[in-house]
């Protein structure tokens, strides 16, 4: 229920947003937040439409690795709204392997989703942002694009690629008032994180250790990430572009925490 005064506080009122991976751990929270701020949100994902609760979030079946799918998605947005204001490239997968263990097929698959997906969705979103007169693209990098977790080689490489792509896109499209940033999350409580822990034994004690290592003594939540997405998407961030926003509870501000 929204009263007049609440509507005034909405920062994204009337904006059109597409969120890839919109039914995933972080994507779901992002869609909910953007919708709460007044945006019309398309949750673009392979599946998961049945879990969407908010009226302002529309599920759109989307495979980020397919150019046909990207064209179809943007054609639908254009038909409905004639423009696009916000694109969040949140679709991503990880493969827990060293490069020796990684098959070419797996390598190509993770690049298809994490890198090619960001490329294709952005490429076909740009004409609609041009029609809007401005736009904000928010990519998902990772703190793993700066420092490596063990046996996540291909994932680390895809995130490094997204970081560089973010800067390149920001340079190329800044003159059209299209801003491009990347959020680089640390440990966020999502199914992907649980899967990463799943291969490592006693999950609860692991989680406590992980909390201990963070300066803020907790994990990030998908809502923490959604808060930064909301800011980057909106007018408050109108001069922010080309940056890699590390959101990690202070994790990477410190030297490795020896158990002294």
């Amino acid at each position: 229920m929204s009263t007049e005064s609440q509507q005034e506080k909405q920062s994204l009122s009337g904006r059109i947003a597409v969120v890839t991976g919109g039914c995933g751990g972080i994507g779901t929270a992002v869609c909910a937040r953007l919708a709460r701020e007044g945006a019309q949100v398309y949750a673009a994902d392979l599946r998961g439409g049945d879990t969407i609760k908010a009226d302002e979030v529309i599920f759109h079946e989307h495979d980020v690795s397919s150019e046909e799918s990207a064209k179809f998605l943007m054609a639908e947005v254009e038909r409905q709204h004639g423009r696009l204001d916000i694109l969040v490239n949140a679709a991503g997968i990880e493969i827990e392997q060293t490069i020796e263990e990684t098959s070419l097929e797996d390598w190509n698959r993770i690049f298809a989703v994490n890198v090619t997906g960001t490329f294709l969705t952005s490429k076909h979103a740009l004409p609609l942002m041009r029609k809007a007169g401005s736009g904000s693209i928010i990519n998902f990098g990772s703190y793993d694009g700066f420092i490596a977790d063990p046996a996540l080689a291909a994932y680390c490489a895809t995130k490094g690629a997204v970081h560089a792509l973010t800067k390149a896109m920001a340079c190329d499209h800044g003159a059209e008032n299209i801003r491009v940033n990347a959020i680089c999350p640390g440990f966020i409580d999502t199914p992907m994180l649980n899967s990463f822990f799943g291969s490592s034994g006693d999950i609860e004690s692991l989680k406590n250790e992980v909390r201990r290592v963070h300066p803020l003594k907790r994990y990030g939540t998908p809502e923490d990430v959604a808060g930064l997405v909301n800011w980057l998407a909106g007018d408050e961030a109108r001069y922010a572009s080309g940056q890699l926003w590390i959101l990690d509870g202070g994790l990477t501000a410190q030297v490795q925490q020896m158990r002294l």
Partner: protein
Amino acid sequence: MARLENKIAVVTGGSRGIGRAIVKALVEEGAKVLTCGRGNDPADFPSGVVWQTADVSIPEAVEELSRTVTERFGRVDILVNNAGIQIEKTVPDSSVEDWENLMGINAKGVFLMCREFIPMLAEGGGGSIINIGSISGNHADPAMALYNASKAFVHGLTRSMAVDHGHQGIRCNAICPGWIMTEMADAAFEMAKNPQAAKADALARHPSGRFGRPEDIANAVVWLASNDSDFMTGQTLTIDGGLVSASPLQPTLF
């Protein structure tokens, strides 16, 4: 062939640890070295090394060093600002005296040495300044607030001097050591509840599978002092066995 034949080097804090290894490596490559420290002459340096007791945080002591260099060698080619101390405290725990001690040596000392020796380096047609920074200048070690900040100062000053004095043929770079096993690092493990376990854990975080040795840093100093690094200036070189390239969170360690 020795890479630093007939070069003149000044190394601060050369009596022990990393500084001592730097002095030794420079001498082995053919350089003549003046080194200093606040204590007495260790008296067991290789031949060709001149010792002078000096506190780099005192301007008169630094002037005295440059007079000695002029008298003994007539010029200088290499300046290594290695002298440093650490104080293990947070900001509220640190006294003004702590600030003056630590910043005096780690920051002001580097400034005074560079101010004194840059004209002499320029007069000789240029040279190489090598500052010892730290990975802690980029990422914070807990309860080492002033130390971390002093090393960030060193990194910033390194870039500034590279920019300001490149046209005089002076190169300026910093080395950021990780965990080098010196008396300083041993003291850190002694503070642990279980020093053995602490050491094992710390080792496991190094992709190299070992801690650094003073020689690892000395080797990099030789390279930065030599003509092999002639186009490198303004950089901070991390030498840490891969420590800061790895995530701090490795479930396999827990």
